[in-house]
């Protein structure tokens, strides 16, 4: 391994070292605050490392990894999400009076897993990254053991993730059997040389889709989503919704790009079927949901259905659209979960819709942030969500994927119903006041509020001036070509 390769891996090494630092801090009996602050600084250090190594990219670390613009883009998104989740976590766990310290180790470890996914170009790193992500998540989901649903959600996730990982391995084995390689590029070569794609490859890909579909909560592998979102602590749920999905999507996108699967009609048919099913089921399931966390889970199912539409074209527009959409979605969902976290009283999460009745009259700031987030999820113009959806539509239309595009439009309208339902609840009169005393240091509240303000401004900023972000995405994507 050359010096440059080592350097390119610096952010990931910092990420790995961060978890060790936290373990040491725990060993030296440091408090939650110290750990939180250190964790925050370490994340900043990761960002700094990414900035520091930007010159040596792209860098291939044969045979498993490639650190390029694509990977840096997704890693950046992941680190950003973790930064925000970490900030919100402090208040959440501090108020629950359980020992929150190991939480940060697990967060860092699973972040590392997701980050490895974004730079992997080989089945082996794909699998290891995925497992690193999942195994940390099992514990994270069940972190608040005394809660009713936590252990249940953790076990459900464990059983299903293990099952789908098995399928993933099986699919990889089938593809290996066909092509004799686990390297994306070599697989692509061999497939090209063979001319048409064989049944064995298709089967392998289909079986791999089970695991990918599971992690992205795509229909019909979505059943866990609502239970896990509901049972997991809110920061963890937001972590699953953003970091985990971004990582898995990144590796999936890279795999399909590398293999030029957009030219493979059978695969495209499969993906569009999954997309259509996800859009329909996700939106319909959310229609009458009374639990905000479950509702966000269903909405995420639909959103990843939309994302697959952007994914269908497979050309540059598609990749841009997908990255843009993910960015907008991550920011939005973080803002929404941020509100849930800040509103949650100690004993349980603020997930029942009835707790939000008349929120505007009680806590106007939170109500406005949540409203903006919901509007963005619904794709109302001038929010980031609208631009994302528009971008996705354009990509879909360009490829003349009419059926998914039409389903996207129709289901978006259905989606509007339940987002607006929440908004109307927020602005209803006869408010329910959520009693919650602020026992903690004012600084952390201020920081969380500031984060929410930044997220909201970003939502508007991206909605009003998307060109800046799109330009940035394009610049990053050029690095690997």
């Amino acid at each position, binding site marked *: 391994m050359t010096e440059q390769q080592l350097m390119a891996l610096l952010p990931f090494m910092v990420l790995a070292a961060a978890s060790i630092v936290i373990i040491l801090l725990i060993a030296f009996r440091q408090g939650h605050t110290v750990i939180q602050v250190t964790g925050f600084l370490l994340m900043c250090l990761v960002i700094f490392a990414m900035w520091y190594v930007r010159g040596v990219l792209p860098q291939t670390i044969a045979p498993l990894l490639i650190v390029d613009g694509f990977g840096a883009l997704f890693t950046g998104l992941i680190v950003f999400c973790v930064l925000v989740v970490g900030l919100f976590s402090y208040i959440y766990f501090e108020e629950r009076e359980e020992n929150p310290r190991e939480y940060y180790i697990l967060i860092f470890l699973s972040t590392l897993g997701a980050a490895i996914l974004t730079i992997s170009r080989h089945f082996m790193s794909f699998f290891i990254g995925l497992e690193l992500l999942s195994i940390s998540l099992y514990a994270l989901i069940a972190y608040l053991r005394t809660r009713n649903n936590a252990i249940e959600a953790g076990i459900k996730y464990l059983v*299903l993730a293990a099952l789908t990982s098995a399928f993933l391995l099986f699919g990889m084995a089938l593809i290996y059997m066909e092509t004799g390689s686990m390297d994306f590029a070599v697989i692509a070569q061999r497939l090209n040389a063979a001319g048409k794609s064989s049944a064995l490859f298709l089967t392998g890909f289909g079986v791999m889709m*089970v695991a990918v579909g599971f992690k992205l909560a795509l229909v019909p592998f979505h059943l866990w989503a609502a239970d896990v979102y509901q049972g997991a602590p809110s920061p963890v749920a937001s972590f699953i919704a953003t970091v985990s999905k971004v990582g898995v999507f990144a590796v999936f996108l890279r795999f399909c790009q590398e293999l030029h699967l957009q030219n493979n009609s059978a695969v495209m048919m499969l993906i569009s079927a999954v997309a259509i099913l996800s859009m329909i089921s996700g939106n319909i399931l959310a*229609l009458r949901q009374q639990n905000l966390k479950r509702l966000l889970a269903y909405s995420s199912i639909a959103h990843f259905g939309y994302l697959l539409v952007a994914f269908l074209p497979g050309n540059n527009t598609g990749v841009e659209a997908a990255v843009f959409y993910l960015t907008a979605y991550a920011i939005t969902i973080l803002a929404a979960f941020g509100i849930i976290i800040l509103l949650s009283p100690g004993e349980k999460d603020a997930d029942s819709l009835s707790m939000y009745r008349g929120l505007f009259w009680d806590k106007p700031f939170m109500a406005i942030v949540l409203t903006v987030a919901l509007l963005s999820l619904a794709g109302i113009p001038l929010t980031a969500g609208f631009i994302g959806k528009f971008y996705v539509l354009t990509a879909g239309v360009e490829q003349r994927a009419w059926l998914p595009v039409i389903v996207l439009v129709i289901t978006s309208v259905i989606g509007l119903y339940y987002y607006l339902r929440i908004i109307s609840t927020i602005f209803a009169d006869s408010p329910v006041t959520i009693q919650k005393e602020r026992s903690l240091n004012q600084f952390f509240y201020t920081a969380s509020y500031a984060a929410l303000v930044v997220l909201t401004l970003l939502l508007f900023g991206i909605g009003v001036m998307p060109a800046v972000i799109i330009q940035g995405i394009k610049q990053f994507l050029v690095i690997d070509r």
Partner: protein
Amino acid sequence: MHQTLSLIPALPLAGFLILSLLGRRLPNRLVALIGAGVISAAAIIAIWLGISFLQAPPDSGAYSVELWRWMSVANFNCSFSLHVDALSLVFVFVITFVGALIHIYSAGFMKHDRDYARFFASMNLFVCAMLLLVMADNLVLLYLGWEGVGLCSYLLIGFWYETTANVQAANKAFYITRVGDTAMAIGFFLLFRELGTLDIPAIQKLAPEHFTSGSPIITAIALLLLAGGMGKSAQVPLQTWLPDAMAGPSPVSALIHAATMVTAGVYLVARMHVLFQLSPLVMSITAVIGALTLFIAGCSAMVQTDIKRILAYSTISQVGYMFLALGVGAWSAGVFHFFTHAFFKALLFLAAGAVIESLHHEHGIFKMGGLKNKMPLVFYTFLAGAAALAALPLITAGFFSKDQVLWYALSANGGNPLLWIVALLGAFITAFYTTRLMLVVFWGTEKTHVGELPGRLMTLPLVILAILSICAGFIEWPHNMLHITLFSDLVQKVLPPVVEAEPVPSEALFQLIAVVATFSGVFVGYLLYRKNTSIIESWKQTPAMVWLRDFFYTGWKFDELYNILFVRPFVFITQLNKQDVIDKIYAGIVSLFQRLNGIFSVSQDGSVRTYVIGVLIGIIFILALQLIL
């Protein structure tokens, strides 16, 4: 340069934001300072911009600056730019300058109102929207400004919302202009379908190549755009909202319903002149509508008793002149009449507001009288405005612009003697009702006690506007008198010059006829309302005259006509549809999805076993799909 250009609409917007967010907490003095200050600053920038434009015109003939590129995806491009050429410059100048004067006036006029900040916030928003309308370089932004001014107009007509009648007037204005707006939007859609762009410069470039002159599609587009302009500019048959709109405070009437917003239609037609020129039929329709409007509204103005309603009808009538000018192809004459009209009509409204305020909110002119000596300053300024409205020759701005309109109504390519005769009749009527108004309000005996006289904040704008009402015309003289054509030189950088049909003999003769008409109008007014009032008394006995007066008074019964034509059938239909049959479809869709929701929810039973089966079904589904393919 570019940055200052965007400052012009940005300043009023900033004023609006500050006042609407913090207005209630600020002291009135500061509110007025912000409200009037931002507009004044915008006016100063606009004047400076105008001067530099005149000194060194930009190469492209326009200043433009891209404000905001929203997105540019594939071949879809959505960006907003400001584009100020000579035509826009005239409008920007009038909007900011007259707007600033009216804001200053309002600072005194509204001082006892408890919603001081709300008033200024709405006014600032209005100015911002109006500026966007005239500075927009594409029709989408123009439409945004268009709807923005509509909204502000609605808010300000209903400013004193405790009175039901005011709210109804606001609603009426909103509904009726909506008819025009809808037509206009459809026109835009058609235009987009045909040309694939809504950029104004692009339209001007593409339209002549794309459309053949007089083809049905261009006629339809031009007609729809015209309908939009007619709604906003209160032209027959969409004029009925404007008299009622006088329910708003007087500065609102002056700014929105006299000087600026109602002329948005004029701006639209002038801006889209390329399209209108391609359709001679629509040009003629524009001219005829203008002529009809000026006559119908003029007749109504003759018999009104509410001082503001007289001015409202007079505004409709004067805007009719502008449409007439545009319709005959005398583009610059129409815009020139807008220019002078803005000054004298704003002046008249402000002066009327001062009168009303001093007479304890008395609107009826027959309850006024004898104010000549009680309120000398208001009297003299009002006189200047009235003289300009009546178009007294050579000493008023109104004369120069109206003379042009009259002359071109006859001589221009699209003109014809009938139009000229109607316009002449209109001039007579205008002179008549102006004289009537002056005589009844300012002469005679005092009927209501004069209260507090207007303060300096209110009189200063009156004086400035009075000076402009007299002098603003001197920048453009009739051809046969002096060769000063500053105004048409400026706007003809954008608008095509008028095409005269064939040399009509002796422009002077027709000018003389027009002058005679004006003076005879003044004379008749003097005869009836000063010299020999018994004639009117005798008319009150004649049933035919009473009916005619009533007919005019109610604005030619248009409201009743619409009541029969639209309101009643609509009420009838809604009664038929009490059960809301159409809603059943939507209810059906809703219950369908609710049922689907129920079915889908069954899968979420919380049991891992079910979920595993779900995964298995999924993989079977995927494999089966591939087996089929």
